[in-house]
């Protein structure tokens, strides 16, 4: 079969994986080889859905012996099956890379014959790319649940990032919808990756020549809206993964219905894009803003407010802490002001050393005054003519029209704050700013 058809089928079955980044490791080029990686990652294109294309994202094969209900590649789904050979895929990756179409390869696979057999083929591909073609660009490879740890270790020595997708955020859903996978199948390789990465960073610190194991770390993905878990459950799980497993990223993927299973949303149901977006915003707050999942949500409010971003929502519920005086507030508190991002908080710290800041100055610094004005004073003064009541602020922040759930077009009404959407997230998410 020709490569064009294989590429089409194996891209089509890989596209629901949302991880798109090539970030996390800075590795310059070297004579005799091709390629480099850039710490902040590079987007090479943007697809028709607005998401960043950074890596050649394909499956090794869409044959699969498992029957995960939410997945297009499940064995019970009647669809055409194909497989790349390691040679074909290595050649294609190099040809695309040389033309500067991509930063590298994101390789995943359905399970052909057995997890080990599948991982062997992934390994063979990576060996070709790294050793025959001397490729120094980015490689993200999936750890197939159930694979022999020795094989996973070999893959980790060749890849920049590895991931095991959790997909369903609870054991119960997993049991119902992914009958061939147990919780342990997923967490065992995750644990192994965590300890290998940790051990490796120790080795690297002690012996400069130690080979690097997945230097850009480990990530995972959870499907949102396929099963009944709340935002609070999902976010708490993510927080645990960041803390316990030292994950670099948790990705959230709004479920696109691909099955008639009565336990899943029917075909034609719109993917919960707004919910996915809120989860990314909250995730950002966990990683860069010092928030805890329990501060944003709790048992009584287990789901995100669709009307406003989680930081605004938090601030409105803690009006007793505001307004903050921009010229004296500590960094941690600046970060909690809606409309102030990590960059602008740092710039405020720098700029205020040279004299006190006015509202006009804050604009230059990049603060989104439209939201921040309700929560700050500059040298004791509020922005002109503002009255602060919870209700009034809320109305001002969300505008007068109420957006409907599942309508991402409406996002612009309460413009997801610039600070939450900087960089990676903006590019990966495909959300409007």
């Amino acid at each position, binding site marked *: 079969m020709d490569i064009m058809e294989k590429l089409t089928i194996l891209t089509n079955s890989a596209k629901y994986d949302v991880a798109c980044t090539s970030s996390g490791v800075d590795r310059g080029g070297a004579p005799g080889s091709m390629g*480099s990686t850039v710490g902040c990652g590079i987007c090479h294109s943007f697809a028709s859905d607005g998401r960043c*294309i950074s890596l050649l994202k394909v499956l090794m094969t869409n044959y699969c012996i498992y029957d995960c209900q939410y997945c297009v590649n499940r064995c019970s789904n009647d669809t055409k099956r194909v497989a790349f050979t390691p040679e074909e895929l290595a050649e294609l990756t190099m040809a695309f890379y040389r033309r500067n179409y991509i930063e590298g390869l994101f390789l995943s696979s359905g399970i052909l014959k057995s997890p080990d057999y599948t991982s062997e083929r992934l390994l063979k591909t990576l060996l070709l790319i790294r050793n025959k073609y001397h490729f120094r660009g980015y490689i993200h490879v999936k750890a197939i649940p159930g694979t022999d740890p020795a094989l996973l270790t070999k893959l980790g020595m060749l890849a920049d990032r590895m991931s095991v997708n959790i997909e369903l955020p609870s054991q119960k859903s997993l049991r119902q919808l992914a009958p061939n996978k147990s919780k342990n199948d997923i967490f065992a390789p995750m644990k192994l990756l965590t300890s290998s990465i940790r051990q490796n960073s120790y080795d690297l610190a002690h012996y400069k020549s130690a080979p690097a194991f997945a230097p850009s770390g480990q990530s995972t993905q959870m499907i949102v809206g396929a099963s009944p878990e709340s935002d609070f459950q999902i976010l708490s799980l993510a927080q645990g993964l960041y803390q316990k497993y030292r994950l670099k990223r948790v990705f959230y993927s709004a479920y696109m219905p691909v099955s008639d299973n009565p336990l899943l949303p029917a075909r034609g149901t719109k993917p919960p894009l707004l919910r996915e977006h809120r989860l990314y915003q909250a995730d950002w707050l966990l990683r860069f803003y010092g928030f805890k999942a329990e501060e944003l949500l709790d048992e009584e409010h287990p789901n995100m407010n669709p009307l406003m971003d989680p930081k605004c929502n938090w601030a409105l519920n803690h009006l007793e802490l505001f307004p903050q005086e921009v010229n004296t507030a500590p960094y941690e508190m600046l970060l909690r002001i809606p409309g102030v991002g990590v960059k602008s908080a740092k710039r405020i710290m720098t700029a205020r050393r040279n004299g006190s800041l006015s509202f006009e100055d804050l604009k230059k610094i990049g603060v989104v005054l439209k939201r921040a004005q309700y929560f700050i004073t500059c040298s004791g003064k509020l922005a002109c003519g503002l009255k602060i009541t919870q209700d009034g602020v809320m109305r001002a922040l969300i505008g007068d029209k109420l957006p409907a759930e599942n309508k991402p077009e409406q996002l612009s009404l309460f413009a997801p704050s610039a600070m939450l959407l900087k960089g990676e997230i903006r590019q990966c998410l495909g959300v409007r700013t």
Partner: protein
Amino acid sequence: MPWRTDVVYLYDGTLQGLLTCVFESFSCKELPMHIYTQEECELSLFTAKWVDTDEEKARRVWESIPKKISTRARQLVLQSFYTCLPDKERHILDFLRLGYAAGPSVTERITDERVFVLQKAVKHLLNEAHLLKGFLRFSIHGNVMVGVIEPKNYALSLIAEHFCNRYPEESFLIYDKTHKQALVYQSYQAVILQLDSFEIPKEGEEELRYQRLWQRFYDTVGVEGRYNPKCRMTHMPKRYWGNMVEMAPRENHSDAYADKPAFTSLTA
């Protein structure tokens, strides 16, 4: 004696030329209304004074910046020089005057208009250079890789290192159509040349085959249920599309910009 301001400087458009103008300004106590290159020069009410580029004077100014201000300030000056900020020469002079008076803290005065205007322009430049590292497309002709860009800023100097480092064993040419400059890299050596025109050679069969494969990947990877052309436009402004393989009209279909995935979902 107050500084004379009713004068316009003309220079050759090089960094050294501009640094010589800075020297001239201080030594003659002149604050030129504008500093122009020859092309920009229009009839003006003011005396136009041609400033000859002088390597020694330029060097003295260049070395004084880290000594009297900071290395960060010098980097800002250099990067500002590559921007498309109108009247950038005059803004750079203003910044240096402030810097010589204020010292190393000048780059922290991010709310001072003289600093802000340069930092904003540089941000635009760096952003454009970053995007080009991703959006630039090479086509391969024999053994030579060729790419064309049309940046607003003089971004070529900023992306040169990235590409030379990434493809050390290759030979390539990147043509900046806006500023008519070419980066040529071969055998671990890179130069930037003035090049008045350049046409991409016709593609061979293999090149076309990979272009088609890339287009197919592009057409397939977007998720239909998340179609969002506005978002795409925000991240990848239309002005870059003209030089990108995947945004070129398809041979066999009518949807010129691959608006919809060509291959309908396997499971639909």
